[in-house]
Each structure stands twice: as structure tokens, then as C-alpha cells.
């Protein structure tokens, strides 16, 4: 049962690897961005899991509760989510511009046009 206590971390590793594979393998530029998003989300999961305290509640000061989850990783990841969204936006904007100039979003077809 040791492995199950770290289920979140295993999930993060699997997600990160699927994400990385999806960045490298497909030749479609949008699919690559989806993979990149998965890779980043996996990292967010690591942070959030590390901040969880067993039996802890949300970090609101109240006499009834004594144990709180660490709020700092949540705040850090809020920032990182903003970064990830901006990256996705810039990436998609570039993809739109590439589609306009090359007429395709497939990497192999773009390479072929560049080689000509």
C-alpha cells in the first residue's frame, strides 16, 4: 500500500511523461501545445500535493481548527497557471500566424516548404 499513499505523485509523473511525449511525437503544432499544457499541469499537481497537510483545512484562522494546509504552494501555482495560460496564448497566436503564412500547421509540411 506504500505506493498508494503517493498516488498523486505517480499521477503527476505519468501526466508529465504523456505531456512530454505529446510535445515531441506529433507533428501537429496544436497537439504539441496541448502536450506542453499537460506537462505544466503535472508540475502544478506536484506543488499542490506537497502543500496538503493530512487532516488540514483551508488556511482560514478559526478557533475550531488547528491544522491548515500550506497556502503558499497554492499561491505559487496560481502565478504559474497564469504563466502557462500566457504561454499557451502566445503559442496559439504563433500557430495562427504560421497557418496564415504557410497554409498548414503540420511540422513536416512546414519543414518541406522551408527547404525549398
Amino acid at each position: 500500500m506504500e505506493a498508494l499513499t503517493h498516488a498523486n505523485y505517480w499521477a503527476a509523473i505519468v501526466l508529465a511523461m504523456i505531456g512530454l511525449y505529446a510535445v515531441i511525437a506529433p507533428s501537429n503544432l496544436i497537439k504539441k501545445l496541448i502536450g506542453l499544457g499537460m506537462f505544466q499541469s503535472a508540475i502544478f499537481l506536484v506543488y499542490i500535493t506537497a502543500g496538503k497537510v493530512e487532516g488540514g483545512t483551508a488556511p482560514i484562522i478559526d478557533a475550531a481548527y488547528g491544522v491548515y494546509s500550506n497556502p503558499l504552494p497554492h499561491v505559487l501555482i496560481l502565478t504559474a497557471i497564469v504563466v502557462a495560460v500566457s504561454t499557451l496564448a502566445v503559442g496559439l497566436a504563433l500557430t495562427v500566424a504560421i497557418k496564415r503564412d504557410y497554409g498548414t500547421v503540420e511540422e513536416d509540411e512546414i519543414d518541406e516548404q522551408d527547404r525549398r
Partner: protein
Amino acid sequence: MIATHLPVLQVAVPLIAAPVCVLLRRGNYAWAFTTVVCWGLLAIAALLLDQVMSGGTISYRLGGWVPPIGIEYRLDGVNAFVLLILAGTAALMMPYARETVEREVRPGRQHLFYAIFLLALTGLLGITATGDVFNIYVFLEISSLASYVLIAQGQRRRALTASYQYLIVGTIGASLILIGVGFLYAKTGTLNIADLAVRVPALGETPAVLAAFAFITVGVLIKLALFPFHVWLPNAYAYAPSMVSAFLAATATKVGAYMLLRFVFTVFGIHFAFETLPLTEILLALSLIAVLAGSLVAVFQTDLKRLLAFSSVGQIGYLGVGIGLASVTGVTGALVHVFNHALMKGGLFLAAGAIACRLGATDLSALHGLGRRMPFTMAAVVIGGLGLVGVPITAGFVSKWYLVQAAFEEGLWPVALFVLAGSLIALAYVGRVIEAAYFRAAPPDAEPVREAPWAMQLSTWAMIAGSIYFGLHTDLTVGIAERAAAALLGGAP
């Protein structure tokens, strides 16, 4: 009173100036405003360096919160020196910016170009000034996102694919740094660099710290573009607008070198990185391959900007050699080379941009006879190129002198041989440019070319003259770099 708030002004001023540029609506207004901002930043950076040199490390509490809970900006000899390089490069390039942005960027977008340029500068200055590892990640992404947009403004459509490739690789690099920072935080409960410098070595060789070290080092090497991670660099520099190539070549990889120094020497500590782990061997091997392979590939390029980009891959190898040797002389050499290479490569890319502005191309075949037709610009290319080779009285000689000396101190004479071999190969690629420009006659049907606009020459020559000045007067750069290196190797700042 304002003097105590200089550290935060260094980063906040360009951040606030960027949206102001958007509001100005007109390219010329935005240019004038950005120029004022950049020279102001240079003044701030100079004052800060002076404060650090006379009064020691500055610790600035952001918003008055006490570190390590609050965010701290911590300036010592190393980052105050890098701040000066960044602000100085931006300020010197501003006269050039107007001419080239008017030609290369679409009319409705010129004010936005300056806004994004300021954001890129904000990110780079922020990475350098901050004393908080998560802040480093955020500023890294600010500068990277801005650079992707700037590179995509290139005139050819390949700028778009180059920018996309950089976006993918750069985001993976930054994400790896984020994982490493997460491990460090989980293990120590702090994000403050000075605090980490105390707590991380105390943990010893735990798997989490080893993993954090691996993730952060690989992430930073991607941003530094050291040998196997350099794939994004040549296309990004070759297809970006002239101003952007020059600015990024002079600054972005330098900040990567700074991050490597900060993480390896301050956060993890020299004992952990170089004695427990074989970072010297890894860095030296990668760097020497970078020096040889980058320079060799540069020899076979047919385009001046791509040639300069591959030469950058080689020159980054020299930074890696200095850092990998992990001695005061080696790190001094690396820091001096950061400064000198910013001047030389910045000046060379500016000259290449000036050629592109008059010829519309930078193919070596288009350069035939250009020594007579654009004598001043080509003279700048020759002097800058000799600097890359490391000819005495140029700045490049000073940094290589220190690197070779550091290699001998460690008894690693093969390293010194590789450094010298790299210089010889540099002579070959600089020679190709000189041959095309001076020893080939222009085709008889060539259209007459005028010399580049004076504002472009002003920026180019300011950088190139700087590389000669600091080749002759080494006290300033070497003095600062030596103190900074001694502080880095002496443990926590």
C-alpha cells in the same frame, strides 16, 4: 531617500513603462520614451554597482516585509555587474532601434514593439536583481514570453517557426526549473536564496536535493543554450529583427550564465556541485564540445547572421569552461567574458543589421566588395570579429587569457588547448567574412549602396569601441569580476 529604493526601481520602472508605451500609440513617441527609460535604468544600475562596491551587499525588502517571509532583492558584486551589462546594452542600442524598427516592424505595431522590448528587459533585470527562486522563474517567463513575441516580428516567415521552436524548448526549460524549485521548497520550506544557501548544504545528499539540482541545472542550461541544448538559438537569432538579435545575443544568454552561477555556487554550494557531484567534468565536456562544434559549424554558414549565431553557441562554451573550472580565476574569466561577449556580439549583430538595412540581405555572397562600399560598418565587423578570435588589445583577449590561465592553474592543459583551438576556428569564420567583404570585387551590376544611417553606426561603434576600450583598460571589468567571483566561491554572499 530615493537611493534606498533603487533596487526595486531597476525592475519596476521598465515594467510600468511598458503599458505607457502602448498608450503612446505612435512609434516615435514610444521610441523617445523608451530611450529615456533605458538611460535612466543605466543610471540606476551604475549607482547600484557603486553602492555595492563601496558598501557591500544590498538587501532590499520588497514592500517592507522582512525576509525570508517577504521577497528580498539582494544585490552583490555579481548581479550588480550583470544589471549594468543589461541596462548598458539596452541604452546603447536605443539610437539604433529607431532606424531599424521603422524599417522592419509594421507601422501600426511599432509602439507595441517598444512595449514588449521593455517587458523583455524587465524580465531579464528581474531575474538578476531578485533574491527569491520563485521570482526567478516568474521573471524568466516574463522575459521569455516577450522574447518569443519579439523574435516572431522578423520579416521572413521562418521567424514564426523559429519563435515557436524557442517557445516549446524554452517553456520546457523553465518548467524544469519550476520542478526543481518545488523540490527545494518541499525540502527546506523557503524560497529565499540566502536562506536556501544555509539550509540546502545542511541537508546533504538527499534524493530530493539531487533531483532538484538535476532539474534546475538542465533547465538553466537550456536557457543558457549550452551545447546539446542550443538547437533553438541559431534560428531564433538568425530570423529575428536586427535589433532583437543584437539585444538577445548580448543579454539573454548572459542572464542564463548568471542563473547558473547563482544556483550552483550560492544555492547548492561549491562543495555539493563540484565535489559530491561531477559538475566540473560534465560542464567542461559539454562546453568544449560547444566551443569546437559551434565554431566549426559557424565556418560553413553562408549567411552572416547565422554565422554569428553559431559563433554564439561556441562563445557560450567559453562561459561554461570558466564556470566548470570552479576556481576564482575561472569564474572571473567567465564573468569578464559575459561582459566582453555582450559588447562584441552585440556590436556584430548591430553591424549585421546595418548591412541588412542597406542590402536587404546578409548572405556572405551579397557582402562582396562591401569593404569599399560600407567602409565604417565593415570596419566594425572586422574589429568585433577579431575580438571573437581573441586578438590582443581587444576585449576577447582578456577573457580568454583568464580562462587559459585558470585551466593551467588546475593543471588541465588540454582544456587550454581546446580554448586556443576554438580561437583558431574563430579566425577561420571571421576570415570568411573578411574575405567576402574585402578580397572579392563587387559584381559589376551591383547597385550603389550608401553607408548605414548615422544613428545605427553610433550604436554599433559604441559597442565596438567599448570592446577595444575594455581590452586596454582591464582594471574596471576584471576588478569587479574578481571581487564578484571571490564572493561567489567564498560561500553565501
